[in-house]
């Protein structure tokens, strides 16, 4: 359902949307049934002159069906939903498919710094490309990300990817995504992080192979071209935290 509003720009976006659809259908059915009975009873059993209400204690076996039926039905559908949910969760958060490339995302009040690996496809080398509030990735490539925060909690969220992960100062949190569409999409900070939380926006720009290569070429720091084998620790900006 979500896809009608927002593109599915990553491999797992469709899985999450399908899970949401599944929940909508199963829970929606029970919701409608409950509302149907609810309104039905209200309409049917309105007070009438001279008609006494029935006396039902709800304690005997036959009457208890009202309780046991929802009990087992809910249990059954819960199990169904849990299985579907955990399968998606496993895929998105617990497995790390082989990466084509790794980016580092450093958040702080209230800006994003994206460290791209540059031409050598390795982080912490001299040719890393650092950008602010703009993440450049290539379509159909699997990315790992390393999420770090410099001050408070933030959260890296890309709705078009259906991806969200909080950043915690002092830790590096890893995850992955694989973009499937070209174009630009919002990156949001979804954890309150102070006054600037509301303007902590960034964009992810997904390019096809040729465009991405061109972008990398145009933006790679010059040092890299001159001394391609420069060790990481000679470069002041490249140190990892």
């Amino acid at each position: 359902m979500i896809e009608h509003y927002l593109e599915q720009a990553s491999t797992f976006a469709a899985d999450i949307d399908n899970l949401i659809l599944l929940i909508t259908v199963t829970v929606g059915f029970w919701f409608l049934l409950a509302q149907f009975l609810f309104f039905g009873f209200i309409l049917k059993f309105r007070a009438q002159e001279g008609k006494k209400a029935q006396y039902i204690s709800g304690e005997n076996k036959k009457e208890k069906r009202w309780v046991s039926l929802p009990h087992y039905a809910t249990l059954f559908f819960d199990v169904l939903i849990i299985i579907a949910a955990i399968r998606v969760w496993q895929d998105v958060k617990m497995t790390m498919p082989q990466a084509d490339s790794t980016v580092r995302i450093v958040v702080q009040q209230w800006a994003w710094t994206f460290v791209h690996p540059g031409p050598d496809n390795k982080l912490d080398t001299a040719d890393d490309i650092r950008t602010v509030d703009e993440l450049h990735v290539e379509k159909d490539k699997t990315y790992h990300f390393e999420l770090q925060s410099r001050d408070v909690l933030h959260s890296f969220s890309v709705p078009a990817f259906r991806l969200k992960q909080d950043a915690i100062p002092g830790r590096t949190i890893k995850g992955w995504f694989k973009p499937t569409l070209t174009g630009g999409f919002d990156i949001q900070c979804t954890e309150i992080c102070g006054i600037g939380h509301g303007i902590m926006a960034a964009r992810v720009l997904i390019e096809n192979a040729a465009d991405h290569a061109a972008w990398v070429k145009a933006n790679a720091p010059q040092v890299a071209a001159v001394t391609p084998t420069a060790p990481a620790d000679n470069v002041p900006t490249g140190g990892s935290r």
Partner: protein
Amino acid sequence: MSTATAEAGHGHSHDAHGHHDEGFIKKYFWSTDHKIIGFQYMFTGMFMALIGGFTVYAFRMQLAFPGMSVPGFGRVTAHDYNSLVTTHGSVMIFWVAMPVLIAALGNYLIPLMIGCDDMVFPRINRLSYQIFLLSAVVLIASFFVEGGAFGGAWTAYPPLSASAAYNLTPKGAPLWLIAVALEFVAFLLGGINFITTVMNSRAPGMKMFDVPIVVWMIIIASILFMASVGPLVAGAVMLLFDQTVGTGFFDPSRGGDPVLWQHLFWFFGHPEVYVVLLPAMGVVAEIITVFSRKKLFAYKTVLYTAIGTGVLSFFVWAHHQFVAGIDPRMANIFSVTTLLISIPVAEMVFVYIATLYGGSIRLTTPMLWALAFIGEFLIGGVTGIFLGSSGSDIYFHDTYFVIAHFHYTFFPIAFIGSFAAITYWFPKMFGKMMNETWGKVHFWGTIVSFNFIFIPLFFLGARGDHRRIYDYTHFPDLMRSGMQELRVLATLALIVLLAFQVIFLVNFFYSLVKGKKAEQNPWKANTLEWVAASPPPHGNFPELPTVYRGPYEYSHPEARDDYWPQNQPPATA
């Protein structure tokens, strides 16, 4: 003995050498009478609802019309926005839902419904309210200190909340924390009082299963609160030290752990939502039985599901932290426990629906509210499943979908439940009837506009609107066609809703003074509070009642009438 206490209250008005003002203060501010303390909580809660409502008006105007100067507030800056949201959330939960549903109803109803003359610790009860009042004052004061009110959300996650360098509210943050901590103390004292009163002071003959469901629910809620709040009290002390003396409990660079706070907070925070849910469910049980003239379907099952919900609620807290950086394996476990909690809640809902079956339903104002509670809460309940399922929560976490989910639970609880309770017990509380016509106008206006606020928020959340954002224009994907219109719609609906509350307040205060005089038992209900006069005098009952049967014997084949009061001896039936 009972006459002695009743006389003591009576003698007051004839007090020859008592000054009038002193009597007033003594009666309404320094009283140990449980009914007066209940009123104190209720009126404070209603006043705080105005603050909760005003803050939401200010920040929703900003969302609909970014940058405008909001009438009555002025321009909403980013800092204001965060403070307003934080205050709105905290006030509505801790200073509206809790005092009205637990403290006001608990204080007012428990002694009356179990047939005794007061709480077992009347003076501790008074102290509990005074601490509560102090907490409200501290919270309001935090708006006027240097740096302004705390804006780190009601969840107050550190390191943001722990350091003024990050949150920029050096005074507001500690004051907020102190206010919340004081409120906890007030409710701990109140809870101990409720529990011991019900355990020890029930009327002769009132067995465990003769206690009305609403009393049970308040007791279960008090126990839940007591058992879950401890770790957060400890956490609050730690956070206060982080804020004020510079410890590093939650500071990762000094060996602390910010995620620990999240665990402490949600270990309390999740049971807390059932702490307010259960009393509202209890109110609904009282009302639907009376106005459908039916025995409550499966009384014991209701109890067991409430207890089951309470127990389970201690094992689900991390569903608020699925993507917070906890071990992803933990998410699987908590997803399972979270979905399991839908079982007892679903049972409870179905039991209520079953109670309507075969009834003789009269749609009075309180009954409309009670029924609306069931219908609306269902929406909030089922949308919780989308969030409890870990896979889909990756997308929904911290979006307006969550906001809409919990307003579909909280609004029914805090307002629909309170309106049900107030309209139902008003005759008892004040000895006057409320106006039915205006009551219904208020009902329909509120219900319709309420849905127009929050249905749009579900859609906005599904389209990616995230929480606590004061201006969406920075996010191109969130400014696509139709989205701003939905925000405006929600805000306009809110203004309509607020306008309808004026009707309620006028009806309330007008009826208080000029309403038709209420009989002792206008709804023909069974429970003991209706045995007392309307309003009950100090000491409650002319003669303390004895109980012969359960509270829901409506339309019993052996009874003469379609109700059978709990205190009526069997012979007279």
